[in-house]
């Protein structure tokens, strides 16, 4: 056992520094609001202890003026911190434009990441370039997990059946902890690994070294045929099914009259729960692929659908 203990976690991003500043600021506020209580109780208890001959006249039973000030004062002070906390939070939640995209899948008890667009995959490790915004899209294959990156002061629960995202810009190259923060069963404590923040050069090198034989979209294209999607959605198909080229990010009008943006979640739901949102004008004949397609393959399929523009489609035939 080592007797040196760190007293402060490493800060791997500017955001982490800001969170620390907020935390320290609030700690100072705590001292400000709490110390008077401790000191005054000490003084009063000793000064007015039983049997001591001190002036006890003019005792009061209350004072509305005092009450309002010690209710409103601290409240307003904390409100300032509330605003600060919200500002930072909104900052962290806003997805940066042009971010590097990574898909993460959690399952009992490991993390799997695939990098867009190259399709590099890794387990329990996450390589990201320093100084570049990164957006991780997360989902779980079983229970709720939570991706926790202490050095970035960030955490996001990972839910089955839903995509959540975590975005950040790490600044300082280094190796930091990556943990699961939501209790997820027997090996929750060891479901972790590390996040490696690299200089963009190192990252590019890493990417090429661990290059997958196929990019995500290419793998998706293969799967698209394997799972028989192309039988209906292919251009030569006789089935009346929508053309998926250029679908991603477009508004889709549904049979129910609503319009919905075709994002990752929509495409995932269309594959797993095809009857939930029927595209307007098409027969509801698409079979469900629930329990057939794994989360990781879904990611590849989505990447493929996302990448295909109308031209790619034609060239296929």
């Amino acid at each position, binding site marked *: 056992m080592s007797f040196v203990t760190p007293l402060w976690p490493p800060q791997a991003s500017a955001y982490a520094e800001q969170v620390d500043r907020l935390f320290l600021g609030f700690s100072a506020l705590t001292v400000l609001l709490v110390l008077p209580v401790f000191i005054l109780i000490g003084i009063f208890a000793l000064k007015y202890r039983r049997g001591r001959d001190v002036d006890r006249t003019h005792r009061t039973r209350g004072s509305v003026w005092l009450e309002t000030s010690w209710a409103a004062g601290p409240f307003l002070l904390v409100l300032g911190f509330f605003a600060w906390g919200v500002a930072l939070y909104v900052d962290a939640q806003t997805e940066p434009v042009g971010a590097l995209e990574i898909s993460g899948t959690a399952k009992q008890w490991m993390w799997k990441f695939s990098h867009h667009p190259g399709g590099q995959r890794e387990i329990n490790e996450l390589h990201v370039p320093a100084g570049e915004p990164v957006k991780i899209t997360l989902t779980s294959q079983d229970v709720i997990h939570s991706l926790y990156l202490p050095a970035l002061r960030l955490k996001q629960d990972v839910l089955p059946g839903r995509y959540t995202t975590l975005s950040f810009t790490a600044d300082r190259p280094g190796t930091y902890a990556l943990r699961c923060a939501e209790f997820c069963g027997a090996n929750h404590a060891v479901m972790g690994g590390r996040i490696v923040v690299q200089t963009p050069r190192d990252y590019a090198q890493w990417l090429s070294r661990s290059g997958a034989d196929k990019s995500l979209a290419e793998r998706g294209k293969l799967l698209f045929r394997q799972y028989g999607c192309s039988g209906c959605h292919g251009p030569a198909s006789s089935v009346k099914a929508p053309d998926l080229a250029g679908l991603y990010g477009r508004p889709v009008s549904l049979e129910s009259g609503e319009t919905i943006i075709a994002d990752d979640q929509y495409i995932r739901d269309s594959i797993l*729960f095809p*009857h*939930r949102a029927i595209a307007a004008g098409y027969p509801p004949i698409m079979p469900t692929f629930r329990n057939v397609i794994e989360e990781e393959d879904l990611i590849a399929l989505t990447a493929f659908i996302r990448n295909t523009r109308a031209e790619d489609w034609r060239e296929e035939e």
Partner: protein
Amino acid sequence: MTDEVRLRNPYHQAAQQRSADLMGMYLFLASEIMLFGGLLAAVLALRIEHPHAVSSAAQHLKIWLGTANTVILLTSSLAVAVAVAAARFGRAALSATLFAAAGMLGVIFLGIKALEYQKEYSEGLMPFLGNARPLKDNAEFLFLNLYYVATGLHALHMTIGIAAIWTAAWRIFRRHIPVPGRAIAAEVTGLYWHFVDVVWVFLFPVFYLAR
């Protein structure tokens, strides 16, 4: 038959005891509101997240049987209201008869409910029972599952209610509960019955009319 009110332990006055009993019942009902409220919250969430699945799943419910059942329950409530009034006026026989009749209506309600369940079973709507599943979207199951939990819980309350009002009817009839002296017992039982009725008044639109 006596008019005398028996005072229980901590009480000094009849009025105090009576209002404590009423208040106790009302508070209990408030907690029951929250119990069913949790279910309503779940239905609301489902409706917000899957509006279409909810409305198409609701099509499978037997709206006319539900309506008939609502009429029956409202009528039973009328009977109980009159029974309580009769108890307050010391009309023991009338009160007992009406309580018994309301209980009968309750039994009919449960019978119709059972018929509904049976029909739904044969259509394959019940969770993991039956196999001819007419449902398309999985989210429709969520709605029907909630429907079974809610109506099941309501049926449980009905059963307890029937037992309670039949007991009240019998005890009033045998003068074990002398009225009007202890009409409070009838009143409190009546409150419970009306409340179970109110629960149905909400379950009916929330499930059957969600089409």
